[in-house]
């Protein structure tokens, strides 16, 4: 890892507040109904217990994002969480997907939603959401590596790269660190 050229990114806590709130409300709603009921039928248990469990897992996932540190440099991309450190050298990049997720209304208003970048390496996968600081920089390094490795991109991925100002088929200048990048 070339220390001088390495850039570090994180999920800014202010961008995770919404997800923490969602997780908290989801868990609280499911549990409140179950705990305040005199008789819990299996259907209720399934619906509200499942809801609480799903949002509990979502909360843990948000916590993991909160604690994730990402480092990018010429050699590859590195992620560090309290439990694991993972590395994907750019030369090992085998696949790349950039997907957009938004409701029908967000698509129509062309505002809101989020992007998810998935990098595939040998028996490993790394995923980043557009709420991470330096998302465009990570996307730029990934598209560059994909081009060098001859990885073909599906039209949706190529189109999404163009939408954020990165031409996956040609050389585009490296975007400066853009902590305020938002859809």
């Amino acid at each position, binding site marked *: 890892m070339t220390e001088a050229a390495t850039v570090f990114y994180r999920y800014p806590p202010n961008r995770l507040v919404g997800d923490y709130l969602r997780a908290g*409300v*989801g868990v609280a709603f499911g549990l409140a109904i179950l705990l305040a009921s005199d008789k819990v039928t299996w259907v209720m248990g399934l619906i509200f217990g499942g809801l609480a469990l799903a949002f509990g897992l979502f909360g843990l996932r948000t916590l993991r994002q909160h604690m994730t540190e990402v480092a990018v440099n010429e050699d590859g991309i590195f992620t560090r969480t309290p439990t694991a450190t993972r590395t994907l050298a750019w030369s090992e990049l085998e696949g790349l997907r950039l997907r957009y997720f938004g409701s*029908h209304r967000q698509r129509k208003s*062309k505002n809101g939603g989020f992007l998810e970048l998935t990098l595939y390496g040998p028996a490993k996968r790394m995923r980043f959401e557009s709420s991470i600081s330096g998302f465009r920089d990570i996307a730029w390094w990934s598209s560059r590596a994909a081009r060098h490795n001859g990885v073909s991109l599906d039209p949706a991925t190529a189109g*999404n790269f163009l939408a954020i100002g990165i031409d996956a088929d040609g050389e585009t200048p490296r975007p400066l660190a853009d902590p305020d*990048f938002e859809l």
Partner: protein
Amino acid sequence: MLAYTLRRLLIMIPTLAVISFIIFVIIQLPPGDYLETYIAELQAQGEAVDPSKIAFLREQYGLDKPFMEQYAHWAWGLVHGDLGYSFEYRLPVTEVVGDRLLLTVVVAAASIVFTYLVAFPIGVYTAVRQYSFGDYSLSFIGLLGLATPNFLLGLILLHLAYQWFGTSIGGLMDPHYINKPWSWGKAGSVLEHLWVPVVVIGTAGTAAMIRRLRANLLDELEKQYVVTARAKGVPPLKLLFKYPLRLAINPFIADIGNLLPQVISGAAVISVVLDLNTTGQMLVSALQSQDMYLAGSFLMFQSLLVVIGVYVSDVALAMLDPRIRLTGGATK
């Protein structure tokens, strides 16, 4: 994807809470309540009204309680599967509605499946074979379906079903199965009667969907990537299904959420004409008599279907079309 699914799921909870409040406000808006309508009916029939009995009923039904308390009681019951008490039938709403909710879902779902099964192949065919004899013929039939009033089509089909297949007129099952427990015979009878309302309700949306799919697919087929793929020798069917069709069905998928309320409100009118045992007729009567918990439960159930429909369409859209469209690029 999981994150998106959960985020979208959580939006449904406040949405349904707001909808339930709006429904409760609306069904309480008309002046008076069920008991006042009941008193007026008794007086119109010349019967004596016992004020102590009315006061007792008012207390028993909780109509003397503040608005918010009534709402909280109803909403808490809803999340527990308790739909409240029907004043008119003097029974719990769950007992009054019986199979109606299930039958409404069956008719609505079958109508949507019918619409999609008919519109999808015709839309694709008419786009791929633009201006052919088949294009004109199928478009004509689709437009005919759009132009024919539902009640008229319903009456014609009822007559034909009776004449050709001996199916009993009206209803969703043979009369002797009504209020009987479910059996294979009853399910078979429902299937035998189902096609008439499904065709009647389904045809209304089919033509519009054919036109939209045709227009979208034509737009996609004229794009450069399709021309390039053709030039490179990609097999026509593979080319069609891999990209243009996937992108052209966008409004098809997005319409799931819009289609459900249309189908259900359409079914309400059709249920009167075809004498269907769905929620339509009972909802109208419950609204007229201010049977608020019965009417509220139906409206809440229909709203739930719509919210689920929108959720399904959003998730399906995210899977099928993961492209972003930004007006001025991402903000920096």
